């Protein structure tokens, strides 16, 4: 005890309840097991995790397809009366499923006894939606956690540091989890002069729209929670609602820096939204659909078929969309609303703890959504650079399906490309200085807007000319496609080459590498 | 009521309309009045889209009209906010009762 005697009763130390202790013990156990393994085999574990997730996703699609095709060939009840909850359509009983399974054959009767109970729930839409929502929510959580960790690593490398190295062992892989626990445990402060209810609710206005955007965002031909025919416009609109949360947060904080941040966000939003929408119209004009699946599937023919490389206007539109999307995610050089060096922290100056974390989750998740949108619209979506028709020779067997999903098209490609674009956003943030608000408005309204208008006009004319039967037009299109595709290839290989060179010389000081070897020094 | 028909949507639209009119009457802040106008326009849009869905004759037409109304509402909001800001510059307030100079 302390040497001072206090006249009041000393506070008893807080004792955690059984659930909290169990969670803490579980976390410690996980860390104790994972750390030595991760220290020793970081690479295999990373690759293994990716492959496991892919196989899991693939197996889930396979099970659903199996139930639909083999077991539910006869309609369960009146199809017109099919509904979500109604008891008349509570599907096949397990015994009936058993009979169907035996009829379908191939799986063996012994297995069927187990399968009938495993497969029974999967025939209901509500169960499938539950599974899908769980997966979606997991993705929604895991993406910001690792993008934040990665951003800190990239920032460290760019500034000749190493970034987080300690928490969890290998390269601080558990740093974001630790930060999350810390943020949840922190006190949730609401300033006395703030508008309490608005202040509390504003973070949810930013995070819920991002989650809703994930629901309409296809990750693969069949991996979408709800396929909308207007998915593109829907996602844009939903991300527009996100801005309201930022503005309300800034206003409700009742702090001049926050209000400045909110007003900058409002200004910026009004100016970037239009060029962004215009740039997104270019692929829509080229394909003739607002459905993201249709747009992605029209680019299945390999690298040179991707929209950014098959149409010069789409190529420029991709770049202008990317610039506008930086403003949309409040990323540097357009991070005016939260400019740390001018506005303390901008709109989230007064926030702390969990609500502050919500803002960051929303920002990083929307970075991913924006990047995935760019990939689907311009960079071939979930198709690999190899033409999909090469996979036809493999047939439709189980192994062939898995192989095709890994090599030719599948969520893994979309994830890889989107994560690359997210990486470019991070890279730009730590490379470029922040620009002034009037420069942002000038760039968006006076440069990007006329440019995207011209691009839209040009793309329309290009599509119109493509319908003509003139011989030289086909030749011209091919030449342009090849040139654009080669430019893209040069960029891709150049990037990979520089990255490989840097990895090979990773023991050298980063600054030396740039000064001595790389161009532009 | 286990069947959702035209009537239910129209009643919702009617409530929106009433709320919009109430807002327009009782608010003195010019932007508050603008918010009331937005509510009224939305109620009209709900009507149009409901007719589009439930009446054979209005197929497509209702949605087109709703699109035009949305465009008009956006335009109206832009101009009205501009006017409000000018009002504020000239009178230092957005109380609509103060802007009664033309009454003489």
């Amino acid at each position, binding site marked *: 005890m302390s040497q001072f005697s206090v006249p009041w009763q000393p506070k008893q130390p807080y004792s955690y309840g059984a659930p909290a202790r169990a969670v803490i013990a579980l976390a410690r156990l996980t860390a104790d097991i994972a750390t030595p393994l991760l220290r020793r085999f970081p690479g295999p574990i990373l690759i293994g995790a990716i492959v496991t997730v892919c196989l899991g996703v693939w197996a889930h699609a396979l099970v659903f397809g199996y139930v639909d095709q083999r077991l539910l060939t006869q309609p369960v009840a009146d199809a017109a009366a099919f*509904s*979500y909850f109604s008891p008349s359509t509570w599907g096949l009983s397990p015994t009936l499923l058993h009979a169907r399974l035996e009829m379908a054959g191939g799986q063996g009767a012994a297995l069927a006894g187990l399968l009938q109970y495993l497969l029974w729930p999967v025939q209901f839409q509500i169960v499938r939606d539950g599974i899908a929502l769980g997966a979606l929510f997991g993705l929604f959580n895991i993406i910001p956690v690792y993008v934040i960790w990665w951003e800190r690593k990239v920032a460290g490398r760019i500034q000749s540091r190493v970034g987080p190295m300690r928490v969890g062992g290998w390269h601080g892989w558990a740093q974001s989890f630790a930060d999350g626990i810390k943020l949840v445990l922190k006190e949730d402060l609401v300033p006395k002069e703030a*508008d309490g*209810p608005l202040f509390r609710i504003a973070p949810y206005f930013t995070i819920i729209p991002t989650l809703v955007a994930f629901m309409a965002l296809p990750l693969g031909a069949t991996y979408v929670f709800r396929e909308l*025919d*207007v998915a593109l*416009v*829907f996602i*844009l609109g*939903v991300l*527009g*609602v996100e*801005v*309201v949360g930022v*503005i*309300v947060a800034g*206003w409700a904080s009742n702090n*001049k820096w926050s209000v400045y941040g909110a*007003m900058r966000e*409002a200004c910026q939003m009004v100016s970037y939204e239009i060029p962004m*929408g215009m740039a997104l119209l270019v692929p829509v004009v080229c394909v003739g659909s607002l459905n993201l699946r249709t747009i992605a599937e029209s680019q299945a023919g390999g690298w040179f078929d991707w929209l950014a490389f098959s149409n010069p206007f789409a190529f420029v539109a991709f770049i202008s969309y990317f610039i506008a999307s930086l403003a949309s995610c409040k990323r540097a050089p357009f991070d005016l609303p939260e400019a740390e060096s001018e506005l303390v922290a901008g709109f989230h100056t007064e926030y702390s703890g969990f609500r502050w974390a919500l803002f960051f989750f929303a920002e990083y998740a929307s970075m991913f959504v924006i990047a995935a949108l760019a990939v689907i619209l311009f960079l071939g979506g979930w198709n690999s650079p190899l033409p999909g028709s090469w996979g036809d020779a493999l047939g439709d067997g189980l192994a062939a399906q898995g192989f095709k999903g890994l090599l030719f098209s599948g969520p893994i490609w979309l994830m890889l490309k989107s994560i690359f674009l997210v990486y470019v956003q991070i890279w730009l943030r730590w490379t470029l200085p922040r620009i002034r608000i009037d420069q942002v408005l000038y760039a968006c309204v006076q440069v990007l807007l006329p440019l995207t208008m011209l691009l839209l006009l040009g793309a329309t004319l290009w599509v119109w000319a493509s319908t003509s039967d003139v011989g030289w037009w086909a030749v011209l299109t091919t030449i342009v496609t090849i040139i654009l595709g080669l430019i893209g290839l040069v960029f891709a290989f150049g990037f990979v080459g520089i990255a490989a060179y840097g990895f090979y010389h990773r023991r050298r000081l980063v600054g030396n590498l740039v000064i001595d070897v790389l161009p532009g020094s | 009521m*286990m069947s*959702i*028909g035209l009537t239910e949507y129209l*009643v919702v639209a*009617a*409530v929106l*309309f009433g*709320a*919009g*009119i*109430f*807002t327009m*009457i009782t*608010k*003195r802040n010019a932007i508050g009045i*603008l*918010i009331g106008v937005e509510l009224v326009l*939305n109620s009209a*849009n709900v009507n149009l*889209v409901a007719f*589009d*869905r439930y*009446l054979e004759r209005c*197929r497509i037409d209702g*949605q*087109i009209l*709703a*699109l035009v109304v949305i*465009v008009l*509402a956006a*335009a109206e909001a832009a101009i009205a906010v501009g006017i409000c*800001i000018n*009002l*504020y510059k000239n009178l230092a*307030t*957005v*109380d609509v*009762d*103060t802007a009664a100079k033309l009454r003489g």
Partner: protein
Amino acid sequence: MYCRGPEGTVLTKRLTAELAPSDSIGSSRLGGLWRLCGWGLAVAAVLVLVPEVRAQQKVIIEPTRVPYQSVEAPPSPLLEVLLFYAVAGSTVFGALAVCFTKNIVRMAVWLLVTLVSVAMLYFLLAANFIAAVQLIVYAGGTLILLIFGVMLTSKSPWVKFEPSKVEVVYAAAVCGLLVAVLAFILTATIWPPAQEQLDATTVADLGRSLMTTYVVPFEVAGVLLMIVMVGAAHLARQEKQSP
């Protein structure tokens, strides 16, 4: 908030000077008798009009009533019913909250609730494109503009301009009556039977229709937007001319 200044500054004096005469406008200009006459006229009009509408309904709709009634409306799927009542409830709640909120920014937030709920109503009505446009234009554009306007014209917190209680009561009476009459007429009308479950209208259908049947409204809307753009720019430029 950010333009809050100490009391007694030039701004405050000017505000109070401007506001002082206008406090009495509501009661003095329009005498109580005249107001009573107006109300009497309004009530009389409603009392006359409602039976008239009912009679006309009987006259016009009665002949076609038989085929309509013979078709029993099919029960909607349970999910649709639940969703409708949830969304309609949030729409109505948001709209009423807009009415009764005093703080202008909170009004805008409730308006956001209403607008998003209305977008969900459009989804339930199988009008996906309108719903998405509602989200983009209203929730993303107009609402931001409104909040922006609020920020630029935010008043000092001690200057309150609120209507008198009497005014609120009158307004509530008028609007309540309006909604009641509308609801009465709407529920009393016999609408044609609902169609079969329809697929959502495709964007292609809408686009084709905009480019053929409705090309004139489409172009006029475009011209209107152009005019509005010029007008808004002009309004914004006024600042430079005034000293």
